[in-house]
């Protein structure tokens, strides 16, 4: 929820809040041809509200993952400036509840808002639909349409405080592939409860173009576009067996992360089960966002995404895959590659 607001706010702020020469508020970046400026303005307010409005509520999040349809009912409490407290009530055998705390991010805009805005308005046309009601609250409705006119996503924004009450993402056939909705929402002007101390998670260092060029030169997969999404962020994380490359791809609406680390996938990795995604055999986690893992060419690839299944399948299919090759010939091929790399480590 807060992510949604931040998203929208990021691009909306960049577009609408830049002051003009006369001190007026006008768009710094023109919206895409055909986009409704009022829709962009609503998204801007929603982004701001996600950070500045405190609230508590019950939210239902559902989607279609590699393992099938999944859903979570969440009890959410957001305190502006501190973060988001999430509880999952009574889903284990003991009937107890689970909770997680998502602190406000250290870097509120890891991906440049202007970059997201550019991607969003290049890929979609923003517009408005008739106002509606969610959880007993009236809402403005903003739509993102594909070039063919089909609706890719729809957001319901509270008319009073601009919070995102409901959001849905659709595939090319118009089927809902991801959705979240507040079943109950109570804005709180002065929250009485304190969330856990904020421990802001630090992201890995962002990589510049020369570093990406060197990384590509090693033969590692690092394309500028992947499954119709564009590379918007690249970082390096420390890992137990070496650095982990984190590549983020987006079209301004959905996002997919690709993590690459040296080695081969341990078949005893817990929490994963066999699945077929994009025509390839992989291991998949059960939950949202989608978690897909496999190894190929001496690298373990982990794809995590908030995207329609078709987009996710295209991303997985576009990355390297090695069939489970056993036997004499694959072993000789693998050994030949290694011997050659010993003779010429710079090859």
């Amino acid at each position: 929820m807060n992510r949604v607001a931040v998203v929208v706010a990021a691009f909306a702020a960049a577009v609408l809040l830049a002051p003009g020469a006369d001190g007026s508020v006008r768009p710094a970046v023109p919206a895409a041809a055909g986009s409704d400026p009022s829709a962009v303005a609503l998204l801007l307010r929603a982004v701001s509200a996600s950070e500045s409005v405190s609230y508590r509520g019950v939210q239902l999040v559902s989607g279609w993952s590699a393992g099938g349809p999944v859903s979570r009912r969440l009890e959410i409490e957001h305190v502006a400036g501190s973060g988001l407290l999430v509880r999952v009530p009574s889903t284990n055998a003991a009937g107890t509840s689970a909770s997680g705390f998502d602190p406000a991010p250290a870097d509120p805009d890891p991906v440049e808002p202007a970059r997201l805005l550019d991607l969003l308005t290049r890929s979609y046309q923003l517009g408005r639909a008739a106002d509606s009601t969610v959880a007993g609250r009236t809402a403005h409705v903003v739509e993102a349409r594909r070039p063919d006119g089909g609706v890719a996503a729809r957001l319901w924004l509270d008319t009073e405080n601009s919070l995102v009450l409901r959001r849905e993402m659709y595939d090319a056939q118009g089927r809902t592939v991801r959705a979240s909705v507040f079943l109950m929402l109570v804005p709180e002007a002065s929250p009485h409860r304190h969330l856990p101390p904020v421990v802001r998670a630090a992201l890995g260092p962002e990589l510049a173009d020369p570093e990406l060029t060197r990384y590509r030169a090693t033969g590692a997969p690092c394309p500028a576009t992947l499954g119709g999404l564009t590379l918007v962020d690249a970082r390096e994380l420390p890992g137990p067996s070496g650095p982990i490359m984190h590549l983020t791809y987006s079209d301004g609406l959905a996002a997919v992360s690709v993590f690459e680390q040296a080695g081969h996938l341990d078949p005893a990795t817990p929490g994963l089960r066999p699945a077929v995604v994009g025509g390839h055999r992989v291991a998949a986690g059960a939950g949202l966002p989608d978690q897909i893992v496999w190894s190929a060419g001496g690298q373990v690839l982990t794809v995590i995404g908030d995207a329609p299944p078709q987009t996710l399948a295209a991303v997985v299919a576009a990355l390297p895959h090695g069939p489970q090759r056993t036997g004499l010939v694959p072993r000789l091929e693998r050994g030949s590659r290694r011997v050659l790399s010993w003779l010429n480590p710079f090859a």
Partner: protein
Amino acid sequence: MTDRHPGDLLAALVDGLLAGPARERVLVHLAGCPACRADYQQQVAVKGLLSELGPPAAPVDLGARLTGLAAAVPAGAPGRRPLLSRLHRPQTPRGRVALAGAGIASLSLLGLGTAYAAGGAPDGPAVVPAVDLLTREHAATTVGIPMAEPALAPLVFGDGSVAQPMRLGGAP
């Protein structure tokens, strides 16, 4: 494990590099998977062939031939090539072809043996990806993207179990 083929771990088993629970899992899989069992047996057979090759044995009459050659060469004869060079160079075209063929075959066998040995272990270390941590990293990086979900994983209960999503029926 029984429904997942061991892949490169099979080669590691053949080479005796597998131990502990991983070895047990592969053995359990072999017990129930004829295809992997056949693959394993093939690799064991090839490894046995390669290990039986060993270094080439010297001819039994090599000593006598060397002694005879030494006696036949006059001491201090001018223009004579070193003894070993003459020994290894056949005097007839057919012999040279045979020697070249043997050399190529030996090098090929040596290359295959080296490649076989070098290709035994899987690429790189075995990795257990920290999917939950990577999911958080994903959420933190995609904070500005409209349809990105909050970082909900991992949600851990008081008894240590991890919250599982509810399963829904039907297709989208």
